[in-house]
């Protein structure tokens, strides 16, 4: 079963794409990726990192403007489908 990544780990991943001051605030999990400025290839690259770290394929579900927690949750669900 997949391990849900810690907030610290997600922050660390995000900081490759988003200035640290944006991710250091509380509630980073509840902010949308668009709100964090995670757009374009950076958004894809972040998902790529999550996929590699969690060792779960990228979920392919309806496009929306997800929060960080929704993104992680999509990986959890994807992992569940594979078990």
């Amino acid at each position, binding site marked *: 079963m997949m391990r849900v990544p810690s907030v610290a780990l997600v922050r660390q991943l995000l900081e490759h*794409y988003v200035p640290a001051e944006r991710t250091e605030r509380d509630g980073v999990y509840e902010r949308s990726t668009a709100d964090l400025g995670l757009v374009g290839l950076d958004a894809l690259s972040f998902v790529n990192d999550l996929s590699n770290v969690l060792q779960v394929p990228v979920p392919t579900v309806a496009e929306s403007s997800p929060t960080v927690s929704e993104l*992680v949750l*999509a990986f959890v669900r994807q992992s569940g489908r594979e078990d």
Partner: protein
Amino acid sequence: MFTPESENAMTIGNGSTVLTRSTDSLPFLSDVELVPVRPEHFGELYRWSTDPASSFRWRFSGATPSPEQFAVALWTDVLCQFVAVDRATGAPHGLVVCYGASHKDGYAYAAVLGNPSRPTGTGAMVALLRLVDHVFTHFAFRKIYFEIPEYNLTQFGSSIHKYLTVEGRLKEHTFYRGQYADQVITRLSRVTWDDVVQPRFARFLGAASDSDAGSAIEER
């Protein structure tokens, strides 16, 4: 609300804690397919190209050509172009275009027009990657240029600096909202594509492998 219990990793057993959240609108990324532009796409493409909220980002820049002019302009100077659609639903994500090709000198231009009703644009970005992959696979170009008005740069995030090289800047080139904006000409070389971009985004190109793709960080 999704709240990890601690800063440490948390194992989900049956998933009950995390999955209590509504998942009706769950994210994130559709499986994108490129299909050649056909006459039945004209209406949607015309709407995107002339939508007052977004047309300033695209070639007509606020103008509304006649449908007949639009159909001709759609293929003018174009080498190849595709509509990006959701593989499951057929819903369109955007249009990707390769144009201005010089086979003699080994370059071409590429552009992407996202469906204005899709806020994140990730599907259109996947489509752009697939267009580049298609172009470098089928044509012997050394580089692909992207002409980007300065006010569009934020849509590309930090990738402008990571993967593209600025080759030129046309000062105060294009008019919008009472002022002139620079037109930035960026380049993606075949070498950068082969060595950096293609491996990193391989899983979005249909060539994914579980072992690939250079994560920026390893789990601790």
